[in-house]
């Protein structure tokens, strides 16, 4: 069973300033399929500051991968099931050379692996991070396009979430909308697990930031 939730104690009080940073490296609590982790260890991201701690690490819910996984299974089954059927039913006016059948089959499976890898990479690197200082949204939209957005906790104005649909209700995932003040872009955490806990955590951190002395 893949790990959906990883949780250790939430930081309490004012924004946590690196209480745990020491020369001893904590073992990673992350697995490749983790999509919701509270205070994870073993995670670092680009532009992370020395005294910045990851409080929440999120990916889209695993269930969003089901369509491409089903397609992949179908693609794997097509050469042994569908191709012989076509060759038996359709009579080509010429002989298909054996080399083309070999290369075609090998390429089909390679392309299926490529399809799986591309979709997994897109899910794996599409991440949302909440630290004790800011909210970060890293999008890996397509193979050639990535987007890095962030907003300081002090700039957050309104945090809300929405869920809808049978799957979202069954598996408890939804979209968290984060509105920011000023020129910072609004952020959207799409299809994240337990959106209510995400909103609650960000709100608490935001309150801590507001209450902490300058």
């Amino acid at each position, binding site marked *: 069973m893949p790990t959906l939730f990883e949780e250790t104690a939430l930081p309490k009080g004012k924004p946590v300033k690196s209480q745990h940073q020491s020369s001893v490296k904590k073992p*990673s609590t992350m697995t490749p399929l983790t999509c919701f982790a509270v205070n994870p260890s073993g995670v*670092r991201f680009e532009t992370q500051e020395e005294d910045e701690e990851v409080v929440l690490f999120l990916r889209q819910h695993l269930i969003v991968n089901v369509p491409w996984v089903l397609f992949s299974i179908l693609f794997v089954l097509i050469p042994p099931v569908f191709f012989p059927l076509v060759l038996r039913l359709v009579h080509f006016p010429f*002989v298909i050379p054996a080399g083309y059948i070999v*290369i075609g089959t090998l390429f089909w499976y390679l392309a299926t692996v*490529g399809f799986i890898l591309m979709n997994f990479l897109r899910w794996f690197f599409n991440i949302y991070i909440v630290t004790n200082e800011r909210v970060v949204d890293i999008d890996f939209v397509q*193979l050639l396009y*990535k987007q890095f957005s962030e907003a300081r906790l002090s700039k957050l104005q309104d945090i809300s979430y929405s869920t809808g649909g049978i799957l979202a209700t069954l598996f408890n995932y939804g979209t968290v909308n984060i509105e920011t003040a000023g020129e910072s872009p609004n952020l959207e955490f799409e299809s994240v697990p337990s959106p209510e806990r995400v909103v609650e955590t960000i709100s608490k951190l935001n309150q801590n930031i507001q209450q902490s002395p300058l």
Partner: protein
Amino acid sequence: MTPSLPIIVSFIIKALTLLGLGLYGIFAVVMVRQEQLMAGVLEEGFEPILRLLTILHFAGAVGIFILALILL
């Protein structure tokens, strides 16, 4: 008896097949490069395995291209 393809048609199909495999090789390279870039954005522990998989995928693309040159 079923006739085989005329030589000119066979040559065109072979050229197109190699072109398609070559383009797929470029796609595989892009995937390796993009994984490297994204691994710089997020360090989480699983990236070396992903890198290995993308490199193996690229190696597979090169292998099939070479095999096509030999077999077709």
